[in-house]
């Protein structure tokens, strides 16, 4: 019987598929795997990019049903900054370490040409921190608090009825580094018809500018149906509220107007619940895709340090070379030691001798 490709397992020459005559019991392996993760807790990091006052804090509080205390910021900051806060949430026996990073002062400056740079730098810094940990001599990857950004909620202003240039510029610089989900903030100022037009316009502008946003996966049959449907609702028109209004005998998150009450958790009023559902049911996929983004960051970074993989013919291959795929899984490529120029990292080093560490990695493959 030919060895079947078990999902992620590469084909192995000489591997047989055997049948079992009775119950052995290794079907409990996934449970064993999860038991440890549950004890340790899961990390999830959200980045919110949007103008001052667009409703980032309100949305976060509504999504996670917890009022995260945050004071409103001023419009008069000279440059864009990022503010990160971590919280621990528990639901059932699942512990979630949530980190919310918000931009402060985005879109406020008169000259916005460099607004996206601090954001890109922040995302890269988290990747760099993880890479540093991986390269350490004594490392503790399994208890490392992962700060890499898993999802980026990009808030589009409802005022303009189309994407602004700064939106395009920022998203274009981020779409290869992080999962972007565009949302329309303060969507209770748009009527239903206008909303349809607006959403169509945004999606077509994103497509025509070649910006890659996160598509909810449709390959897992458990969630493919709901994901396919929800993919059509992008970008989500969200409304958030830190306050609760008494309706009937319940306190409900809502915004009270003279002409009516906008209920945050009502799917007819806004897409906040859809966003929450999508984030929660696809959380692991978001984390997996972030790991893939990290791998390409790492690849670029190591290449910049001068490392190249070598194929069997002793020719240097770059990561863009399609030939590379022929050389997996064996033989293992060895890193070439080139004529060396490398840049020391500008971050304060937790390792004492980073250049030595990198030299060692290269030397290992000598």
């Amino acid at each position: 019987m030919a060895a079947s490709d078990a999902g992620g397992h590469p084909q192995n020459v000489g591997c047989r598929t055997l049948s079992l005559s009775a119950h052995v019991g290794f079907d409990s392996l996934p449970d064993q795997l999860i038991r440890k993760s549950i004890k340790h807790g899961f990390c999830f990091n959200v980045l919110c990019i949007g103008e001052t006052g667009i409703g980032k804090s309100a949305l976060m509080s509504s999504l996670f049903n917890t009022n995260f205390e945050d004071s409103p910021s001023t419009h008069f900051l000279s440059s864009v900054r990022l503010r990160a806060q971590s919280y621990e949430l528990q639901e059932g026996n699942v512990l979630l370490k949530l980190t919310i990073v918000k931009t402060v002062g985005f879109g406020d400056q008169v000259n916005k040409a460099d607004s996206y740079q601090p954001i890109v730098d922040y995302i890269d810094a988290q990747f760099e921190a993880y890479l540093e940990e991986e390269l350490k001599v004594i490392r503790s990857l399994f208890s490392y608090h992962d700060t890499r950004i898993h999802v980026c909620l990009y808030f589009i202003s409802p005022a303009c009825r189309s994407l602004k240039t700064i939106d395009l510029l920022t998203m274009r610089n981020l779409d290869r580094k992080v999962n972007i989900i565009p949302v329309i903030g303060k969507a209770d100022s748009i009527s239903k018809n206008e909303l349809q037009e607006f959403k169509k316009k945004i999606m077509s502008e994103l497509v025509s500018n070649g910006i890659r946003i996160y598509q909810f996966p449709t390959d897992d049959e458990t969630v493919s149906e709901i994901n396919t449907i929800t993919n059509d609702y992008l970008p989500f028109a969200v409304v958030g509220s830190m306050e609760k209004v008494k309706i009937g005998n319940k306190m409900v998150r809502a915004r009270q107007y003279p002409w009516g009450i906008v209920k945050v958790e009502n799917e007819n009023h806004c897409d906040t619940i859809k966003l929450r559902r999508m984030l929660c049911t696809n959380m692991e996929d978001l984390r997996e895709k972030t790991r893939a983004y990290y791998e390409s960051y790492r690849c670029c970074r190591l290449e910049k340090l001068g490392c190249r993989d070598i194929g069997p013919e002793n020719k240097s291959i770059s990561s863009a070379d399609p030939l590379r795929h022929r050389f997996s899984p064996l033989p293992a490529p060895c890193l070439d030691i080139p004529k060396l120029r490398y840049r020391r990292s500008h971050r304060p080093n937790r390792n004492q001798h980073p250049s030595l560490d990198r030299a060692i990695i290269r030397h290992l493959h000598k």
Partner: protein
Amino acid sequence: MASCPGAPTLGIPFGVGRGGQGEAPQWAGGVPVPRPLCPLQDDKEYVGFATLPNQVHRKSVKKGFDFTLMVAGESGLGKSTLVNSLFLTDMYRDRKLLNAEERITQTVEITKHVVDIEEKGVKLRLTIVDTPGFGDAVNNTECWKPVADYIDQQFEQYFRDESGLNRKNIQDNRVHCCIYFISPFGHGLRPLDVEFMRALHQRVNIVPVLAKADTLTPAEVERMKNKIREEIDHYGIRIYQFPECDSDEDEEFKLQDQALKESIPFAVIGSNTVVEAKGRRVRGRLYPWGIVEVENPSHCDFVKLRTMLVRTHMQDLKDVTRETHYENYRTQCIQSMTRMVVKERNRNKLTRESGTDFPIPVIPPVPDVETEKLIREKDEEVSVGQPEPPDPRPHSLHPPPPPPPPPPPPPPP
């Protein structure tokens, strides 16, 4: 849709703490039914990230698992039979057994059998590493060396793969567990056993078993086990330790866990044949005086071994290999690389080779005192085992103005 349960009792549908004690865990059907997210107009606290473990579960099932098991011990102790009994399948086809003459000059070989097995949707790629020839020669000095080298080779391969640029399809061939067979015909451990276990206990999880336990009466088994445990302590052998039970596990589980720990080394019997006993068909060995049943807990500890190895601690064995043994290997590897790199730098400085042809980072040559300090610092970092260095030294690799003899090439920006 089911009505939405309140937050604290939003049960996560799996038997945490049970992990398959013979009966199927609550969702061992492979793909668990996801909890329907209820309409949220009236619910206050429910967010929904509690399904995250389900998602991880599904992805792990899709990806499949792998496990590498090594069996070691003298010939004829029943290693292959035990493996077949454990996984209820016939791993070894066309096996050729050597006779005594052929074994005189036999060296220890390492052979690998890889099989794909599946149960209830969970796929496992099982690799059995065998060590035929171990302990068979007349002179067995250092016969553990090929085994240790094999394990180190797997670690090295993984280290290279992990440090490479493309890490998508890394194959993990590291040995996760080594079952060591102790002969029941003596009075405890023999010198070869001690040597082997001491050579390997820092590299792999060792699970000692007492082989062919059907030659011992229960009292003799107890005596042997106590003796072996004593000797293991006495010789400082670190066998695989079961993790402590959580305080919130139930009493029954804790008792079982305690019983498991006290049964080391497991007294096992294996069998390739099925016999008829009391009307049932069981794996066993037929003697004139009775039938030894492999899966009978009062006959031997086979069930305990299988439960531990397959049903409850397989993932933990992999975790300990990854987090402890492999990390130790990696640290040592880097430490020895450090010395080589620094020595080479100094050697190159002395021979005054052109800087642009160096295969290592061009930095100003470091005076010997500095080199020794570097090596010492690296050693300290390794031995003290602290993740945070006491205080970063920003300029230790770029010392102040070079000494009068030829100025070194300037460091890159």
